[in-house]
């Protein structure tokens, strides 16, 4: 095992977690598992640590904690280090905790996650409960002190023993987990730097938008389009809307044309109308990668009319959005709905959906449309919503 201090120190100095050593998570021979509990977070004194969500394990000899997801991130503490422990009751928004008071660190301890400490206690926070039973078993073990009587085949005090037979060498386990934590810190730092630069872009775009609004300088249409594409790239909401272009950009223009090509046949097969959620799934499944965002899809569909494409985006009163073929005749659709309903006497959305072979959502919208123009009327009972031909219209 490498000597402590020769590996990169990566976490905040001055934490009581220094009592912990990296462990493989495997029990040693003659060491028995007493109880384990999921959903536990570790605190260094009163401070949260990166050991955010894991399983705490109590054995006859040690207290261990293993990360839920990264199983090779496992740390352990000898029970002999525990002076005493106590409960901390749950509060509003706070899980119940067990506070474990520890002895000062020994000098020849093996490498662990923290190098030194300022607290003398740690806390186990039981986010998924289980603290009562854990407390009880911990009490038992600390009073029985079985570790004093039962020796294990892998003594913690002699690091020179070869451990390759039983589990991976501590140095490897340590480096992997250490590296992981180190990488996370670095990633967060880099992310913060990136965000600072992104903020500059946001501020600049606001300045420009304000000037456009105040008409300081004559921005041409081309420049407006360019500006919008910059906003799109950065993911900044467009504060300037002009009737002529809406929120569309060249990208959406191209997309609109692609969509019409792709959707022509499927939409026809469904009777000339398709819900936007379905279009979203269809398109993205077909693309496989470089998927469209929901907003991309909506913005592209909004351009159908301006581009004179044979499809339209339509929004029903209910808020449901569909893509509709331009050739799709509303009157024909309503007439066919009324005919079907008349044949059957009455029909529910589900029944109509089955008859015509479309989704219940669209079936309902069609029946509602026919009702809106007065050709159908409804009977809304608790059992179901039914549509009948409007006899007031047809009979004298």
């Amino acid at each position: 095992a490498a000597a402590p201090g020769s590996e990169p120190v990566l976490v905040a100095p001055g934490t009581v977690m220094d009592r912990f050593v990296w462990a493989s998570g495997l029990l040693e021979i003659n060491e028995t598992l007493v109880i384990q509990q999921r959903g536990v977070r570790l605190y260094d004194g009163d401070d949260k640590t990166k050991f955010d969500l894991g399983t705490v394990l109590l054995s006859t000899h040690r207290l261990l904690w293993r990360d839920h997801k990264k199983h090779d991130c496992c740390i352990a503490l000898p029970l002999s280090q525990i002076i005493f422990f106590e409960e901390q009751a749950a509060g509003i928004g706070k899980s119940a905790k067990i506070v474990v008071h520890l002895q000062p660190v020994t000098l020849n301890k093996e490498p662990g996650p923290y190098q030194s400490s300022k607290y003398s206690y740690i806390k186990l926070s039981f986010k998924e409960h289980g603290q009562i039973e854990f407390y009880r078993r911990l009490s038992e073990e600390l009073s029985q002190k079985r570790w004093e009587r039962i020796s294990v085949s892998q003594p913690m005090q002699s690091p020179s023993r070869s451990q390759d037979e039983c589990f991976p060498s501590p140095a490897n386990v340590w480096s992997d987990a250490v590296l992981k934590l180190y990488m996370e810190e670095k990633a967060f730092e880099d992310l913060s730097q990136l965000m600072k630069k992104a903020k500059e872009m946001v501020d600049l775009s606001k300045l420009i938008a304000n000037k456009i609004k105040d008409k300081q300088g004559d921005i041409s249409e081309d420049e407006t389009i360019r500006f919008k594409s910059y906003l799109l790239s950065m993911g900044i909401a467009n504060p300037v809307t002009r009737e002529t272009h809406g929120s569309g950009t060249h990208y959406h223009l191209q997309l609109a044309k692609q969509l019409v090509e792709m959707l022509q046949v499927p939409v026809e097969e469904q009777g000339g109308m398709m819900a936007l959620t379905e279009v979203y799934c269809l398109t993205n499944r077909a693309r496989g990668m470089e998927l469209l965002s929901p907003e991309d899809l909506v913005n592209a569909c909004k351009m159908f009319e301006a581009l004179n494409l044979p499809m339209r985006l339509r929004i029903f009163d209910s808020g449901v959005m569909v893509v509709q073929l331009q050739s799709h005749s509303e009157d024909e659709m309503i007439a066919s709905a009324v005919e079907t309903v008349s044949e059957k006497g009455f029909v529910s959305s589900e029944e109509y959906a089955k008859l015509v072979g479309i989704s219940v959502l669209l079936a309902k919208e069609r029946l509602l449309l026919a009702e809106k123009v007065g050709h159908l009327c409804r009977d809304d009972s608790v059992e179901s919503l039914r549509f009948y031909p409007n006899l007031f219209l047809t009979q004298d």
Partner: protein
Amino acid sequence: MHRRGVGAGAIAKKKLAEAKYKERGTVMAEDQLVQMSKQLEMFKTHLEEFASKHKQEIRKSSEFRVQFQDMCATIGVDPLASGKGFWSEMLGVGDFYYELGVQIIEVCLALKHRNGGLITLDELHQRVLKGRGKFAQDVSQDDLIRAIKKLKSLGNGFSIIPMGGGYLVQSVPAELNMDHTVVLQIAEKNGYVTVSEIKSSLKWDAERTNQVLEHLLKEGLAWIDKQAPEEPQYWLPALFSDLYSQDVTPEEADASLL
């Protein structure tokens, strides 16, 4: 009639205006646009560098995604607004969430006839994870919520309703006001609710209670059990936990593709 054109007169006028602004030391929007274009290129480079180091981290770690999203929100940037955005293109965040959106829609559609378009976030989470398979990367509830928020723009009535122990996800345009929501919250405990329960917990009169329950029945969100011992029970399929184990049948899956 005076024709607004690009004749020499118009150009001269523009130059005069520009000069006036420059005198006052005001920077023109066009100049700033040029500046933005340059800065954008630089930013793109920074982002590429970041991506080369940390793209994996984002895909693998839901905690990192949360940090990333929160920071974006703080500075006023929506990394998921467009698949054409830098964030999506270079970090791959877009594909992750947009695909998740597809999976969410499919699960909701497949179960709609059972639960009326209302499902707990827990159940949705479980089913999405199942659908993704063993080797797909992990998806957290936070990820689902963000994906659902994006789906709202598709008009299908996606919304998230906070409940005592979690959230309900609505995927149909049925109108659910505060009265409906509070009844759902009462029903959360047992999966069903009765008229007496509502009257005693909320102190509502019979009319208000029946109106709310009828609406839930009509929208297919509740079923009524008239055979219940003391009084009819209104069951919310969305809140049954034993339905979790029932897989979607092939027939249901087919029906959902309509």
